[in-house]
C-alpha cells in the first residue's frame, strides 16, 4: 500500500501536502474537504511564468470571507498524493489579497480528492488509498 506524508503539527495547524505543478514547482497545498475545487495562489503562476492572460474564464466562489472572483487556468500537470492529473482546471486567486497569509500556496479540493478513497493515518502523518 502506498502512503504519502502530510504535515499536521498541532491543533492549530492545517493538513498540508506537497503538490508538483508542471513537473517543476513543488508547492504546499492545504488538503481541504471543504473546498469544492482545487485552488492555486496567483503567485505560483509568476514562478511558473504562466501569463495571467492564459485564464480561460472567471467563476464566482464562496469563501469564509464572502464571494470572490477566481480565474480558471488549465494546468498542464499536477502531481499530488500519488495522482497525476493533466490539463486540469484550477481556480486561481491572489491568496494574500484575500487574507490567506498561511504557509501554503494551493488548496487541494474535492475535485481531486474524490478520485480515490482517501484514508488518514494521523499518528503516522500519512495518507493512503483504499
Amino acid at each position, binding site marked *: 500500500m502506498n502512503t504519502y506524508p502530510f504535515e499536521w503539527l498541532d491543533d492549530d495547524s492545517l493538513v498540508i501536502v506537497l503538490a508538483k505543478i508542471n513537473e517543476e514547482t513543488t508547492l504546499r497545498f492545504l488538503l*481541504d474537504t471543504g473546498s469544492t475545487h482545487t485552488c492555486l495562489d496567483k503567485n505560483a503562476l509568476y514562478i511558473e511564468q504562466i501569463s495571467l492572460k492564459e485564464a480561460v474564464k472567471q467563476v*464566482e466562489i*464562496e469563501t469564509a470571507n464572502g464571494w470572490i472572483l477566481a480565474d480558471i487556468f488549465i494546468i498542464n500537470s499536477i502531481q499530488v498524493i500519488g495522482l497525476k492529473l493533466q490539463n486540469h482546471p484550477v481556480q486561481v486567486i491572489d491568496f494574500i489579497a484575500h487574507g490567506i497569509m498561511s504557509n501554503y500556496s494551493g488548496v487541494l479540493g474535492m475535485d481531486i480528492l474524490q478520485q480515490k478513497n482517501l484514508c488518514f493515518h494521523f499518528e503516522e502523518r500519512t495518507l493512503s488509498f483504499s
Partner: protein
Amino acid sequence: MILIGKNPPESGLYGLVKHGRPTKKPTFAMQQVVAYQWKIKIADNMEAMQFEMLSWEEIKSHYPDEWVVLGDPIFEGTLVLQGAVLSHHPDKRVASIEGGERRKGFKSFTLIFTGQDQPIRRIGLLRTLPKAR
C-alpha cells in the same frame, strides 16, 4: 541530420552527423550555431552557479520571516532539506516574481515561508458557485 552538442568545442568543429558519423565539413554558420547553443548552456550554468545551495536551517537564519523561492529543492516528506535561494522578500508576490525571473539553470522550484504560521483557528470554505452572476 542533427547538430552534435555533447563535447564543445569539438562539436563545433565537426558540426553535423548522420547515424553517428560526420557527413561533411560544417560551414562557418553551422559552427556558429553550435557555439551559440553552448554559450547559452554555459551562461545558464553560470547563472545557476551564482546561487549557493543552503540547508533549511541556514535559509531560515539568513532570511527570517520571508518568502523564499528555492531552486532545485530537496525534500524529506513535506520538509525542505536544502535548496538554492533564488529570491527572498517579506512580500510573497515580490519573491515569486523575482524567483520566476531567475529560473534559468534550475529544474525544480518551491515557494515557502521561513517563519511560523500564527497559531489561529481557521474555518475552511471554498465553494464554487454554479454560475457567475
